[in-house]
């Protein structure tokens, strides 16, 4: 059973428009959430994170929203650029539970931004 779910395997967006990537989780003990971007033949690159005490975190073109009651988070990219084309992974952690090193990843969403 997957604790972190990314139900959209792929997403195609026009350059300049908004990209919205979604992630759902089942474990209510998760208290920290991260988004990673991965290009082929490279390791995942950290993008942005959010603690469960917040509902929004913004960094430049990237904003992550957290809805704890729905156990849902989303990553917004505005405006989308062709260089954003990559696989995006949502990950969660239960820090207070002592599993600080244990990130639970979703399966990823492949984003394609078309010029």
């Amino acid at each position, binding site marked *: 059973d997957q604790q972190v779910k990314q139900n959209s395997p792929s997403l195609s967006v026009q350059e300049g428009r908004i990209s919205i990537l979604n992630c759902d989780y089942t474990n209510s003990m998760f208290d920290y959430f991260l988004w990673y971007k991965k290009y082929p033949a490279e*390791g995942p690159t950290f993008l942005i994170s959010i603690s469960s005490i917040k509902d929004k975190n913004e960094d430049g073109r990237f904003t992550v929203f957290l809805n704890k009651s729905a156990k849902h988070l989303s990553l917004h990219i505005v405006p989308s650029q062709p260089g954003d084309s990559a696989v995006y*992974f949502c990950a969660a952690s239960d*820090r207070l539970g002592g599993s*600080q*090193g*244990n*990130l639970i990843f*979703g399966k*990823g969403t492949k984003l394609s931004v078309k010029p």
Partner: protein
Amino acid sequence: DAGVTQSPTHLIKTRGQQVTLRCSPISGHKSVSWYQQVLGQGPQFIFQYYEKEERGRGNFPDRFSARQFPNYSSELNVNALLLGDSALYLCASSLAGGMNYGYTFGSGTRLTVV
């Protein structure tokens, strides 16, 4: 500044063999974690080491083992390889063991078991 370096980048092994993968963390980083990523899935946690001690272990069989050296580099060993062990093995380093510092991943070692 060198990032997280992993060696080798690619490896082909036969079923039943043993393999050792290596990871050098970013200078100053004391925590190393290992993840396995099979095709079409997200990375799955195998081990975390901090200050040369095992801090966490994922749901992997005892065929998987790891260690961290005094210089904070790490090795992941897999014995009695199975076809299902074919995957991208990722190493990640961080300053400490907690999430606050974030993780930096290496480019991984692609292991193919035939």
